[in-house]
């Protein structure tokens, strides 16, 4: 199994001040964004977690990336225990977030990737060659020596993917990777994920999304996630079939959560010119933009 969780739960308590610590005042019960999550995700699988804002998707990903400790429950990623072998877990995973602030804006794309490569214990020529390859993979070689602050939203997102692949991870976590992209760019990125990361590299992908079409297009299986709990898991086709022939994924969501799914982000890529890697051409969408952020 690539990822396995048993009763994974996270409860955040209300942050305490120094006075409370000194007085040893007991913690106040807070919110539980991840509540008894059981998952088994196979190697090479593209697993999607679909839920509205505040459902707890990001918290779940952060727990699996060892950035947040669970309150109860256990998990193994690539066979390593999340708490006892957190270093080994981090060696075997990559994380792609939409937070463009997670790069040094005044450094170039290449300088950023070389620095993060050193955190994965790749140095000198090894790092340079690997970074060069990855810049080619995400089609950013032409802008590698420009400052990150000059990149467009799509270019920044491609940089995030390149960084996520630096250590050639067995499992790649992607937290709403198309959130800040326009419809064409989002479609280009999805094609890239399917073609390059899944087909060519055979990675296990754990992707959180807020976009029904994205979940349907990319994922082998999806989990409908709401209020910290997994409501149902299955392939998009099976989930839809379980409700009848004409059902859509939004019906599945409504059925299991009792809530209407309010989608964010567009989906259409019609009329968009794609380059050889499935990204929109440099002239638009993910393409180069000069002067300004």
């Amino acid at each position, binding site marked *: 199994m690539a990822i396995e969780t048993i009763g994974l739960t996270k409860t955040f308590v209300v942050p305490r001040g120094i006075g409370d610590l000194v007085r040893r005042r007991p913690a106040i019960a807070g919110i539980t964004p991840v509540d008894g999550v059981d998952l088994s995700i196979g190697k090479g699988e593209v697993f999607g977690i679909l839920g509205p804002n505040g459902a707890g998707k990001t918290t779940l990903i952060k727990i699996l990336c060892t950035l947040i400790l669970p309150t109860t429950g256990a998990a193994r990623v690539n066979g390593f225990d999340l708490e006892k072998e957190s270093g080994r877990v*981090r060696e075997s995973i990559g994380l792609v977030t939409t937070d463009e602030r997670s790069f040094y804006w005044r450094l170039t794309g290449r300088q950023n990737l070389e*620095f993060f490569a050193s955190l994965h214990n790749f140095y000198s020529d090894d790092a340079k060659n690997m970074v060069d390859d990855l810049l080619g993979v995400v089609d950013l070689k032409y802008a590698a020596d420009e400052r990150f602050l000059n990149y467009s939203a799509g270019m920044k997102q491609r940089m995030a993917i390149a960084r996520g692949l630096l250590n050639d991870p067995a499992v790649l976590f992607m937290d709403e990777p198309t959130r800040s992209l326009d419809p064409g760019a989002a479609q280009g990125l999805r094609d890239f994920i399917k073609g390059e990361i899944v087909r060519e590299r055979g990675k296990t992908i754990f992707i959180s999304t807020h976009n029904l079409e994205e979940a349907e297009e990319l994922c082998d299986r999806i989990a409908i996630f709401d209020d910290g709990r997994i409501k149902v898991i299955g392939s998009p086709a099976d989930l839809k079939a379980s409700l009848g022939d004409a059902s859509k994924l939004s019906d599945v969501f409504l059925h299991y959560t009792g809530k209407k799914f309010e989608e964010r982000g567009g989906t259409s890529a019609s009329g968009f010119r794609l380059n050889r890697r499935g990204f929109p051409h440099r002239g638009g969408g993910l393409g180069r933009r000069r002067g300004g952020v």
Partner: protein
Amino acid sequence: MKVGDIFATYRKALSFVRRSYMLQMSYKFEFFLRLFFMFFNILTYYFVAKLIGTAGMKYLAPYGGDYFSFVLIGIAFSGYLMVSLRGFSESVRDEQMMGTLEAMLVTPTDASAIITLSTLWNFIFASFRVLLYLLIGVLLGVSLAGANVIGALIILGLTIACFSSIGILSASFIMIFKRGDPINMLFMSTSELFGGVFFPITVLPAWLQTVSHLLPMTYSLNGMRHALLQGYSLRELAPEVGTLVLFSAILLPASLLAFRYAVRKAKMEGTLVHY
């Protein structure tokens, strides 16, 4: 630690220094402005020293008798305390605010290593400033002819170990409470007054000198002045070296434990990247 690990840490350290240097050089004007205004600082004390003349001889005799030499060493090396106290907590806070901390913490590099290596550039810059201070001091008449360089380097190493421990304790507070770090405030406010930066601690009333003796800064500056200005031998520097070793032996493990606890607590509360 294996040789391979030491080599890997060295290369990682170089990578952090390179990153910090490139970021610093992307603000060239600020960099050169900082260097430029250093000269004014030194000149101020040079003229204050001229004004004082031999008036403070009674207190300055153990350090060679010259106020400018005394204060030059004080302001130059107290910079290390400032870097240590602020550097670690500012590294945590800067990376939190820039948004890069999380991306770094999801790599196999340990959180303690990330924070420690992030401050390396600050120490290098502080060392560069010390060298400039000393160079300008020599040009203005300070004699370092009989300096015990080995002794000074030992004192410097222990000073950095000691002050860094306090800085890591300070970073631990920032990791949990985000602001309002008492360690930083306590040492920043007391060290300049009681640590003998601007005047010998013998000027203070006896009961206040007790406070001075509790601060590593006092021993660090005493040792540094004796080594650089009077060329004390290692045997003569033993009291300062011994006290700094003691401070380091207590503070370094305590600070690393505190930082590990702080990271775990922040991970538990999910506030690792909050500021």
